[in-house]
């Protein structure tokens, strides 16, 4: 069976649904010309608000539904496809519900949070569609653990080679082995680089001090340099792998907490409207 992306699921069924929903919403908005102007408080405003709020609750339910892989007759990919497309319709539904009115209040806060959640979701779709390919391209036939084993092996080789070399080179190689770390802070994970990489420092060291060596030591140093370069490459690959995974993680770090923040703001929005009716 050909792999079908969540966007193209069932021949774009949910895209079609979303287009119809958007067309109906825009049509109703243009048709309705209430006294006092379009507003969230007209019958259409309430209607769109109710639809939008129910839609948000349904979209939030996906966070629970996705953990129950086996339940239900509708496959998860169908849920996800509908989640993406119907979620996107909220941009139109909520904007027309608000009739383009914004202010410094909880209502606009809810609106902005909703937009943030939706656009972080778009980023998530991009990440899910693009990153698997990038991950595969990066790792090739390797896995992260196989790369790590290779790195430790290279470290061992390098240490042995450096035993016969001057202390500063030996120390740099030892440090490069002992101080190898991958990822770390969010920034390091997401950037896929480590500005304090001990291996990179050792490579630089080998380049510099290598020139002063002669004979057997110079040859050993040359071999050591090759080994350390290889290690540096593998490290870069693993760090890229971590960076791609971090990006996948990151969008959920944006999407999920913002969704809950939206739920709170939406509650405040609806509650306040009826509290001070």
């Amino acid at each position: 069976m050909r792999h079908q992306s969540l966007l193209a699921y069932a021949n774009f069924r949910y895209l079609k649904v979303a287009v119809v929903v958007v067309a109906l919403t825009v049509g109703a908005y243009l048709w309705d010309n209430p006294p006092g102007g379009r507003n969230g408080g007209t019958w259409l405003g309430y209607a769109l608000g109710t639809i939008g709020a129910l839609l948000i609750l349904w979209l939030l339910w996906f966070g629970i539904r996705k953990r129950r892989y086996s339940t239900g007759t509708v496959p998860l990919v169908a849920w996800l496809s509908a989640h993406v497309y119907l979620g996107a319709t909220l941009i139109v539904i909520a904007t027309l519900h608000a009739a383009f009115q914004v202010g410094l209040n909880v209502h606009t806060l809810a609106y902005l949070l909703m937009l943030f959640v939706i656009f972080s979701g778009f980023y998530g779709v991009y990440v899910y569609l693009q990153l698997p390919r990038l991950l595969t391209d990066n790792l090739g036939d390797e896995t992260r653990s196989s790369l790590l084993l290779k790195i430790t092996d290279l470290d061992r080789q390098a240490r042995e080679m450096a035993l016969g070399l001057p202390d500063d080179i030996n120390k740099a190689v030892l440090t490069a082995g002992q101080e190898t770390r991958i990822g770390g802070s969010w920034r390091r994970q997401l950037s896929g680089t480590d500005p304090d990489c001990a291996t990179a420092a050792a490579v630089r060291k080998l380049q510099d001090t290598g020139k002063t060596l002669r004979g057997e030591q110079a040859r050993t140093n040359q071999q050591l340099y090759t080994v350390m370069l290889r290690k540096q490459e593998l490290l870069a690959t693993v760090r890229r792998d971590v960076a791609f995974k971090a990006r996948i993680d990151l969008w959920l770090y944006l999407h999920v907490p913002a969704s809950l923040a939206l739920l709170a703001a939406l509650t405040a929005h609806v509650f306040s409207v009826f509290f001070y009716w």
Partner: protein
Amino acid sequence: MKIQLVKVTRSRKGHPIRAESTVEADTLAVGRGAQCAIHLSDPRVALEHGTIYFGDGARRIAGVGGAALTVDGRVVGDLVLAPGASFEIGPYLLTVEEPAAGYDLTLSYELVRPLPDGLSEIVAKSRFSLEEEGVSKRSMAWVAFIVIALLFVAVPVINAVMPPLRALTADLKISPDVVWNPGPLSAGHAGLSYDCGACHRTPFLRVRDHECLACHEKMPGHVHDPVLQAQLFGGTRCAECHIDHRGAEEPVRADSALCQTCHADIKRAFADTKLENVTDFAKSHPAFRLTLWRGPKPEDVVRVRQTDKAQLVEASNLKFPHDTHLKPGLKGPDGHETLTCGSCHVPEPGDRSFVPVEMERHCLRCHELRFEPAITSRQVPHGSVEDAWLLIQEFYANVSIGNVPVDTVDTGAVKRALPMASEAIVTDDQRRRALSFARGKAVQVGIDLFEKRVCVQCHDVHRSPAAKPGQEGGVPWVVAPVHVASTWMPKARFDHGKHKTAQSECKDCHHVERSHHSADIAIPDIESCRACHAGEAPAAGKVVSTCISCHGYHLAADGPRPRPVPAASPGTKQ
């Protein structure tokens, strides 16, 4: 110096395995380097770490180039190798044993701190996922949810339901519930922006009329008739139409739909009304009705539809031919001149309407009221027949009895007729004759002035039934009261200033060039307005016009209107 070296390794169960070897030298190098006699192959050992030598009567070891020897955690540079002594070089523990037979020194060394496994070391130092950094999505989500719920639900609710707290926060520029404000209040209510409870007194109930009337207590109702007021608005909350939080403008409905609720089928609601149905200015609006004056009594004022041409005449009692006045090259006091509309119709300040045309200001320059132009430039006053008649009588009396005629030019015409002009009038007979002459002259001039030459030019003048010109006392003429309309359509607003555009001229709307009678009415009809004014729907080259573009809400309502009856409660809305 003969030294026994013992390399200690451990079996799997931890038992020591000793591998002995012998070296003979005066000095002995210890280090990582292959050339060292004591070869400690570990990257944590220097290439040449130390030297064993004999000095000061003892065998010693010294670090080379600052390489460290460690004894019980202390770093030493030099150490006597006495039996029982032990020290560390890098990860190795070296122990001086009792010298074996035939040896000067027995030294054992063991790698006590091997390098850790590389893989587990890397894994321990690395963070492969964002979650490992100690922040979970779940905790972030909870924090975000709770912070927003507290700030935007809990705090405003507590503020709202605790009157003492609300009183404290009402004056704050950022009161807790201001975050709930969906939009700016109208200018009149803006002062309440930080005190939501001023109008929203009861949670979950819509703003009720008595909450509005708490401030607007003297507000009149919308229509005069209390029965009608109750019928029209009895079940309607004020706030259904007066919707606030929509910006600084007054919270009143300005849409035609509101008017149409009654006026689209006005006869259904009010069978005896004289109004016709209206829905839209372009599509459905009856011909204008002009308010015309027919007499001094209130009931004499009539409203005539512009389609009723027979009735469409102005009864101003003034004779005024617009066409004559607009002819070019009229003869004026200062020579020939051509009048324009603006010669008489002067805009009032603000340009909304016009200053009323006044005889003294606009007509008198050409239409002088001289009664004896041959001998005097004096004129009778305008506006009062009585005053004018009195002036004429007094003038001729004065002329006939005075020795020196007042304010006259001596042409001989009057003077010659005076008898004994140089003598004092002393006898009754002489006085009567003089008075008789004066009266006769006044009557003659009055008839000429009122009936033939001056007044009658513009006015409808007839003899008074109560007095005759020759009789003493009374005013012999009646000038019909003039009533020139200034407001033709009092139920609508019209601003001339707004209609001054680059394209417009007076004659575009007011066709007076060929009007020869003051009965003609030059108020444009609805079709003229529709040339530029569309209805609610935009039309090319036209101005969109809603009901309130011209009409006010039940405008021209004078006198007190009944107070609105508060709708009982939001639940009773019909």
